[in-house]
């Protein structure tokens, strides 16, 4: 177990180092996040719709699509020079590769979210700071959900010719439950309602995390076979 976690950590650190060198996905994701938050803000008629009604949807549309840019690149970097073969030849369990990729993707999406949340507060003027722990909880659980499924699907589509298009097509249906759940919980948090009102949605998010983490971990090794 320790060996697998060490290998997973090495893979995550390598992925982040590669991303830090190029910054292509990070810059694209951040630019996308700023653009979506701004466009949705200016598209709203403030006399007809209050900011707090639009804000949860805007936040999760931003997170979901910005994350997809990062998830796409997770295995593309392994396709170049067939570096994936080098990892597969090493005496580490293939699950370590999945865990490493999930860890790197979580770090990547978290970085995008850390930059996006202050912008979100700035644009939508939502009272957030006292509700930050609750919002962090829902962001964490929902992000884990789409990163886990996205990492699995990214490994499946990377050998296809149109992987950049295939990933969103396959991933979006899986994202409906966690994103709807996250929007529902976020709406209640921003409206100042108690978190207990959204307990059902939070349970759904947690159940999604557990079930899809288990399924994705089991299925991942099969996606590596040519």
């Amino acid at each position, binding site marked *: 177990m320790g060996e697998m976690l060490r290998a997973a950590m090495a893979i995550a650190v390598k992925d982040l180092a*590669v991303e830090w060198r190029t910054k292509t996905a990070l810059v694209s994701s951040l630019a996308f996040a700023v653009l979506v938050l701004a466009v949705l803000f200016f598209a709203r008629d403030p006399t007809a719709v209050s900011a707090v009604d639009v804000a949860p949807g805007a936040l999760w549309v931003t997170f979901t699509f910005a994350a997809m840019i990062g998830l796409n690149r997770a295995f593309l970097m392994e396709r170049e020079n*067939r570096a994936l*073969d*080098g990892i*597969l030849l090493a005496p580490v369990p293939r699950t370590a590769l999945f865990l490493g990729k999930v860890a790197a993707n979580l770090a990547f999406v978290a970085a995008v979210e850390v930059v996006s949340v202050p912008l979100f507060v700035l644009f939508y003027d939502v009272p957030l700071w006292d509700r930050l722990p609750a919002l962090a909880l829902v962001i964490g659980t929902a992000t884990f959900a789409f990163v886990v499924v996205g990492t699995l699907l990214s490994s499946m589509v990377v050998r296809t010719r149109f992987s950049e298009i295939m990933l969103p097509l396959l991933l979006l249906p899986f994202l409906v439950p966690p994103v709807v759940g996250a929007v529902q919980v976020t709406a209640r948090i921003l409206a100042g309602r108690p978190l207990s009102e959204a307990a059902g949605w939070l349970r759904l998010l947690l159940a999604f995390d557990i079930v899809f983490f288990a399924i994705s971990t089991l299925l991942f090794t099969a996606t590596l076979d*040519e």
Partner: protein
Amino acid sequence: MLRAEPVLAARGVSRRYGHRRVLFDVNLEILPGQALLLVGPNGAGKTTLLRVLAGLLRPSGGSVERRGSVSMVAHHSMLYDVLTARENLRFFARLHGVARQRVDELLEQLGLAPRADERVAAFSRGMTQRAAIARALLPDPELLLLDEPLTGLDDASSRVVLDVLAALRDRGRAMAIASHQLAELMGLVTAVGFLKEGRLLAVEPTDGRGTDSIMGRYRSLMAHG
């Protein structure tokens, strides 16, 4: 005299890509210290066979038994262009549980030490290939599989690679090399395997035979085998 245990034994190996069969009933043993050259025309199945032997491809039929670690140098470097040679090797060393000191030794041995902190993207074909070989040698493998290891290399780079491989063979390590460059590899290899249309027609020791003799046998097998 006791015969050494093979480091790799392939029995009845076949491989399909969809409906197309590219390997048929391949039986092969590779012994410690053996340097086997696999020759055959393009599309004979050399690369597929090496990938099956390495464990990167699952055989459609038959089995491959490996004793000890297996490493591979392929057409592609298996390295990350944006990382330096040292960073690449340190990453793979961590996966193999190999000490950092081994990375420095290999960089030195393959003549990469002066440019070890440059990105692989800035390397020439010869330097990239040497870095790929350094990656493959990290775990000091019992068996090294090489796919066209000399392609695109100039004489100096070829010499470095051949010297490293000869030293490896002399230490009792086994290797299988798929290549068309018979003449360059004759001083290294100890046996030749002839592949045609996915079938391993024969595996014969070189026994001091020259390139012309091996080429004659190759032509004969390809024409009538």
